[in-house]
């Protein structure tokens, strides 16, 4: 029964992806034939030329920076919200969620005006900052729950046994939080990688991310190009996500092995 459910879930995810693969490589495909008459990878080669690849690489880099920046800000904020009591905590928590609740165009326009005044509009820096702001609420909300369950207890114990504040944080709390931090960063990456309108408004089209190349084709409705770009998109997002997951799994396997050896 459980296997059947799993199989059905897998099917729901894989079937649309399978369609994308078919569309991406189909030559002519007249109705009502079940499969395309011919296959060709010619347009994949056309799509993945040097300039697309360089945009893709830079895009991965800038999304990664946005995600990292956002996690760096989100973690202390989440810790403060979860572990400390201070006046106005509820309001701050609500404000942190505002970017998700407000209609996005409203605050995109605000960001555009702000960055214009600061004189950094149309730069990669502005795009990275704006993406980090969009990711922030997701990071804070995910990490608040984690901080809640980790708590301050273990760190306080370490402190009472004589550890300095830094070494208590570095050797006790951080290793406990690491899996959550990594997966929040991976989530942030995926969110940033898919931003289109925000990148257009803040980057003015000068800052090119992969979404900027892909979305016009997808909106234009060319089936084959849309499928190709979507596949690359899914591939990168899933790839980065599983890469992060893989690194963490290895890290903990090693840690567990060391732990066992010591016993």
């Amino acid at each position, binding site marked *: 029964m459980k296997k059947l459910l799993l199989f059905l879930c897998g099917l729901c995810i894989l079937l649309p992806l399978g369609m994308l693969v078919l569309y991406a490589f189909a*030559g002519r*495909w007249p109705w009502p034939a079940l499969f395309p008459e011919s296959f060709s990878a010619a347009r994949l080669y056309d799509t993945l030329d040097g300039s697309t690849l360089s945009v893709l690489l830079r895009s991965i880099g800038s999304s990664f920076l946005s995600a990292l920046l956002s996690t760096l800000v989100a973690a202390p904020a989440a810790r403060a919200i979860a572990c400390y009591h201070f006046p106005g905590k509820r309001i701050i928590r609500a404000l942190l969620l505002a970017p998700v609740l407000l209609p996005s165009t409203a605050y995109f326009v605000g960001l*555009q005006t702000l960055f214009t005044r600061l004189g950094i509009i149309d730069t990669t820096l502005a795009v990275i900052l704006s993406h980090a702001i969009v990711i922030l609420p997701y990071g804070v909300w995910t990490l608040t729950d984690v901080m809640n369950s980790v708590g301050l207890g273990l760190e306080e114990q370490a402190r009472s046994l004589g550890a300095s504040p830094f070494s208590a944080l570095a050797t006790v709390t951080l290793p406990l939080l690491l899996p959550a931090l990594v997966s929040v960063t991976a989530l942030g990456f995926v969110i940033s990688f898919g931003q289109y309108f925000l990148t*257009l408004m803040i980057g*003015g089209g*000068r800052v090119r991310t992969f979404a900027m190349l892909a979305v016009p084709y997808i*909106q*234009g409705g060319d089936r084959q190009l849309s499928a190709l770009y979507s596949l690359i998109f899914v591939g990168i997002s899933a790839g980065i996500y599983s890469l992060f997951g893989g690194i963490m799994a290895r890290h903990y396997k090693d840690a567990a092995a060391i732990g066992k050896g010591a016993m």
Partner: protein
Amino acid sequence: MKKILKQMPCLCLVAVLALGIFGGCAAQETAADLDYSDWDAVLAAAEGTTVTFYGWGGNELVNNWIDDTLTPYCAENYGITVERVPMDIDMILNRLAGDKSAGNEEGSIDLIWINGENFATAKENGLLFGPFCEYLPNYQAYVDAEGEEATMDFGTPIEGYEAPYAKAQLVLIHDSAIVPEPPASAEELLAFCQENPGKFTYEAPPGFTGSAFVRNIIYEICGYETVAALPADSTKEEVREVIAPAMEYLRELNPYLWEGGATFPATEAQVDSMFMDGQLLFSISYDPYHVSSMISNGQYTDTCKAFIFDKGTIGNTNYVAIAYNSVNIPGALCLADAILSVPMQATKMEPTVWGALPVLDMNKLSEEELAEFAAIDVGVGSLSQEELLSHRLPELPAYLVPVIEEIWLEEVPGK
């Protein structure tokens, strides 16, 4: 006296503001010291700069033409680097409006691909630089400046604020192996659909091509002159009254359309995909050489052909304009000039490259230049330039387009 004293702070404020505004203007003029009518000075100022070219990026052929043909041509002949930025026109206009309200005088947008309602909006709101057309040597040499399409864009006077880029014309497409005799008028189309129900549809307006098809039907049924004669301040009800016979025709057509006319495809590409798949018998394109391009890349069968109605089909010209806050006006002028050159207009006419009709006045070309156009193989399936231009009907005034789209939405789908 007392009154004046009371108003003193106000007056001071006005004076300061006025000074600020005039001061600002003066400062701008010194920054833009260049005399654009001195073309050599423009060339010298543009040399070595980068020009951004903003426009719709959804057509792979157009993108490739800009990247692989226009950009190297500009580098070689003007010493400028062209940076193509794919962005939808409403985003571009939003951006410019945002710049204007934030007081950003150094925008990142130089040249913009534009026409119709968007041009009317941009010009009205002072988002464009100009007039600039008369500065361009190629405009002076090759464009018929008095011609309909150089003076009016969807009924909006151009007044030198945009230079022609390419011409498009609506064509219908059939596969001659399946439908040997395509309909030559709206009446014949209706009769055809009655015999072959469910095999025709058009993109839902305000989609660009679908909207043009609806206007074309209005021309067929009511006549272009009747609709174009509507005064600029006509109300929606007045427009509704004039185009009523055409809406009646479309409702009559509805039951024989795909899905019984209850719903319409959202994009032009969806109609085209259904045609390629054999689900529809006709496709519609605003790109006159679309058929040749699609045959050459193997997506259409070799027997596909373009056709038009005997009374003609709608055509428009699209243009390039310069942003009001462009930081590289000399470069933008060079790019606009390059677009109007004979080699660029000729290469983009080739169906495998882009397939856009040239905007030059063929009477102003020399023998050799004419030969460049004559040498172009328009490929299999497309109509000749003469055939198209002799059946070309002008676009309606821009303000009528959204009104007609609204009326269509109220009166046609599912009715």
